[in-house]
């Protein structure tokens, strides 16, 4: 086993980011190995297609490599930062292909809804993921659907209103209640929202 490679495995994400600023490609490889599954999973959830998800994940990780200096530890963890890059790039791409996805999502929105237990059948790998899953499971399905259409599919609140034939005020209200319920989930357990 390469000793040099092993050294990187014990470094914290924030340390690896510092090494990226010195153009250390092995530090980048370690970060990739730690976070590529979560990043690819988010990319796939947003794009709904493996090739598009690969392109998005590649785009996002190269932004991590080229823009490590823009990471700010006080704004959240490295993992959250990487996922926010995937999300932002994904939203840009979805909106540039909005018309193509609209029909597909209309069909999905009107289809019978899967039960939360099916939607979250996967067992999550770590406790943070487990907690998030529990928090989302507390949401009424109609609130979760609106959060998902906004966050993963890149729809604006006005577009969601049109898509689901709901008043705009109802969409905003469900967004607010959904986010509040997630926050309350953590606060009720005396835990901070993971960042």
């Amino acid at each position, binding site marked *: 086993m390469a000793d040099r490679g092993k050294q990187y495995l014990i470094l914290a994400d924030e340390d690896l980011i510092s090494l990226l600023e010195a153009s250390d490609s092995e530090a980048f490889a370690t970060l990739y190995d730690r976070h590529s*599954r979560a990043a690819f999973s988010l990319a796939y959830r947003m794009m709904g297609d*493996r090739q598009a998800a690969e392109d998005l994940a590649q785009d996002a990780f190269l932004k991590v490599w080229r823009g490590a200096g823009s990471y700010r530890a006080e704004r959240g963890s490295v993992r959250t930062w990487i996922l926010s890059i995937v999300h932002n790039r994904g939203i840009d791409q979805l909106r540039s292909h909005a018309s193509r996805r609209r029909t597909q999502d209309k069909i999905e929105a009107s289809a019978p809804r899967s039960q939360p237990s099916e939607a979250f059948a996967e067992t999550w790998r770590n406790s943070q993921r487990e907690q998030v899953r529990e928090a989302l499971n507390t949401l009424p399905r109609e609130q979760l659907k609106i959060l998902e259409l906004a966050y993963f599919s890149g729809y604006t609140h006005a577009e969601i209103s049109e898509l689901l034939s709901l008043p705009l005020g109802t969409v905003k209200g469900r967004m607010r209640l959904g986010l509040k319920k997630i926050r309350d989930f953590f606060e009720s357990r005396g835990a901070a929202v993971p960042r």
Partner: protein
Amino acid sequence: MNEMNNERFEDLKDAYVLDALAEEEKRSFEEFLAAHPERQAEIDELGAVAGLLAFSPEMQEPPPDLRNRIMNVVAAEAAPRRERQGSVLGGLWGYLGARGLALGAAALLLIGLLSWNLLLQDQVDDLQGQVQSSQGQVEDLQAQVREAQAQQTQTVQLSGTWTTQGADAEVASISGDRIILVADDLPAIPEGQTCQIWVIKGDVPEPSGLFQPGGTETAAPITTPIKKGDTIAVTVEPAGGSEQPTTDPVLSAEL
């Protein structure tokens, strides 16, 4: 377009953190936020809640080829970037040297150019400081690694069917209380399955962590305290792990 005010800010902030505002609304919201920085913390906090959605998708394994493609780009960019960083001071000194000749030839502009030269000198000092700071940071990290290695009290090699297929795995005790499994070149496992670590005390296996073999190197913490005489084993289990091993170990070692 309604004018942005506190009431409208309240009305739109949830959609903002979900990135669900139209461009014009978003711009107007951000202008208001810039003018009212005291509300930034509230938006950061709400944004963290929205950001949790990123952790919720069903796990998908990225194709190994994706890693190769990205690393090829990174490798191609890394060398020139290091050269640029290494040569930044040399380049500036060379630049200043050439300017020095120009100064000699243009004595009438001496005072003005001297002032400019002093300004550049400050910039060079700043750059030197930045480079030294960056080097210092890297040296600190390297020192941490050396320290961790020095404190590494025990390393035990694992063996089994996977090592005969070319995998290399060991259990390392770092800083006394951090036990990790570190492995290279583990084979891929089918979708819907996971690797589970067991610490076997006597005949009783205790679940001690899950991991997915990914990339060329894998590291996973072992969550159960271990002592001499225990056995560490790894089995392939259904996603989420099992209460008891359901397959034969692919890696194991007696401590």
